[in-house]
Structure formats: structure tokens, C-alpha cells
């Protein structure tokens, strides 16, 4: 897989080896929430581990998150100082087109973002001081591929309801530092 150059699964193993995460998995989970959207904006999964404050109802929250990411991607593609030829602001971008951001940080949280070539967007919100979570997002994407996409009972573009997936996801997230 050229997209995930070198770091993840080979043909023979079912799941890739987990990237080094030495957390003991006790209380005080570092990850707050996880969102998975498909390319049309349908929220496939929203998982919450630690969220003291909810400002909006779930539907509005998902729409706001998707909208923020859409705008941020247009913004980064346009403001990119290294390419001279850029499209107009507001034109929908294909996955992989233009410069994309992978993380932003505020004083209370850090949002880590990954978009796959098929348009699946993974958003992991963690504590503000965590490091680069790109490897973690790739691992979660592989979990998605193994337990959701390869599940014959799963209908694409519908919310995910696979127990194995959520169980493995929770287990993995607990090991994140």
C-alpha cells in the first residue's frame, strides 16, 4: 500500500503490530473522543471516553466538526506557501489534493486528523500535550479496515455497529500515551 508507506500490515498478518504505546491504561485516559466520517459527511462512528463539556446536541456537533474540517482543509490548501498554483477558496478538494493539515492544538485539546484516499476522515481528540498521533490514526484505520470493511454484514455509509471493532478500538486507545 503506497499510501501507508512501509509502516503497516503485510499480506500475511491479520492485524499490524501495534505501534509502541507504553501507557498502562489506567484511569485518566488521554484520548477524549474519536469521530469517523465518510466522504459525504455521514458520521460513521462517534466514540467518547472523556468529555466533561458538551455544548451542542450530537447532530449539530457532528455537522460542526465536519464543517470545521472542510473549511480548514480549504484554508490550508490555499494558504500553503510552497505551491504557486492553487485553486479558488471554497472549491471542494479531493482527498490528497493540496496541502492538508494533520493536527491542531489549543490550550485544552489537540485534534489529530487523517484523511484516506477513499475520503474516510478520522479525527482523534486528545489531551493537549500528546505528541504526533499520525501513527495511531493509521492503526485505527487498519482496525476499521479489518473489522468493519471486511465484515460482510456491514452496509457501507451507515453508522458502524461492530462490537469487535469498538472493543479493539477501546483497548488500543487505552494504550495511547
Amino acid at each position, binding site marked *: 500500500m503506497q499510501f501507508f508507506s512501509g509502516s503497516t500490515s503485510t499480506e500475511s498478518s491479520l492485524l499490524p503490530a501495534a505501534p509502541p504505546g507504553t501507557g498502562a491504561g489506567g484511569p485518566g485516559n488521554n484520548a477524549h473522543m474519536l469521530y469517523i466520517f465518510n466522504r459525504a459527511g455521514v458520521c460513521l462512528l462517534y466514540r467518547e471516553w472523556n468529555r466533561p463539556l458538551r455544548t451542542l446536541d450530537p447532530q449539530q456537533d457532528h455537522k460542526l466538526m465536519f464543517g470545521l474540517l472542510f473549511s480548514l482543509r480549504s484554508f490550508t490548501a490555499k494558504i500553503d506557501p510552497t505551491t504557486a498554483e492553487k485553486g479558488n477558496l471554497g472549491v471542494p478538494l479531493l482527498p490528497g489534493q493540496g*496541502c492538508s493539515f*494533520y493536527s491542531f492544538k489549543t490550550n*485544552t485539546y489537540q*485534534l489529530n486528523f487523517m484523511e484516506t484516499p477513499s475520503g474516510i476522515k478520522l479525527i482523534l481528540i486528545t489531551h493537549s500535550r500528546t505528541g504526533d498521533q499520525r501513527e495511531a490514526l493509521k492503526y485505527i484505520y487498519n482496525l476499521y479496515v479489518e473489522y468493519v470493511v471486511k465484515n460482510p454484514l456491514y452496509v457501507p455509509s451507515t453508522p458502524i455497529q461492530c462490537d469487535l471493532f469498538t472493543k479493539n478500538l477501546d483497548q488500543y486507545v487505552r494504550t495511547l500515551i
Partner: protein
Amino acid sequence: MYVWHFHCLFICCFNMLLVNLNWKDYGSAGRMDTNDSLRLASLWHSMHAISQQLSPTTGCNGIDLLRADTFDLHCFQSLTGTKFFVICEPSAPYMELLLKVIYELYTDYVLKNPFYEMEMPIRCELFDLNLSQVVQKDRVALLAR
């Protein structure tokens, strides 16, 4: 001697009520005209506000750092809501300090200038002069602080 670790630097400051944009471009491939820069600044302002809404805990002050493939964007918000942001190379050091220094220059050379009208584009020579100095030469001074 040190070489400043960014290949380009945009400095933009604007406040909450009006997009009073001062955009300085210190050398890059991707230059843009005034309309585009105004649009981007407004977009940034809204996204900064939305990111506060999406916080899982209280007390969020908006985006401080945005990391992308080819650049980083550091943002500083003053107590009055005026936002300064700088675009630099990935992992360029001392950008937070730079933003604070620029804020000091802004208060000294722009706000204390009796001929400067609020909410208008900044046309103060001393500000521009000091800004280019800080950006290009005073790396050692920043390190010492």
C-alpha cells in the same frame, strides 16, 4: 551565524469586529492578492471561534498551532481579541516568542501612534522597519530572553 528557519513568513493581525488586515509577506512562492488574504483571514477568525465550541473541556482559547504537511501556523490572541498569526516552516523554533515580540511592537508603534486610526490598515513606517528587523536579524536576542 544562524539562518532563520522559515522560508516564508506571513504576519497577519485582525480583530473581532472588523477585519483590519495587515499582511506581510517575507518571501514565498505562494503570494496572494489582497482579496484572497482578506478571505483567508476571515475564515481563520471563524475557525478559531468554532474550535472553541468543540472543546471537550471548558476554558478553551482557540487554536494556538496548526500543523500541516509543508508549514506550521502559530496564532496568538491578545486579551482584546486581536489575532496575530505567523506561517513558518514545520517545527520552526521560537515562534511563540516572535509573536509576543510582534505584539509589543504593535502596541508601541501602532497603537501609541496618534495618527493611526483604529480598524484601518497599518501604515506606520517604524512598525514596518522594526518588524523586518525582528524577523530577520534578532534571532540571537530572542534566544537570550
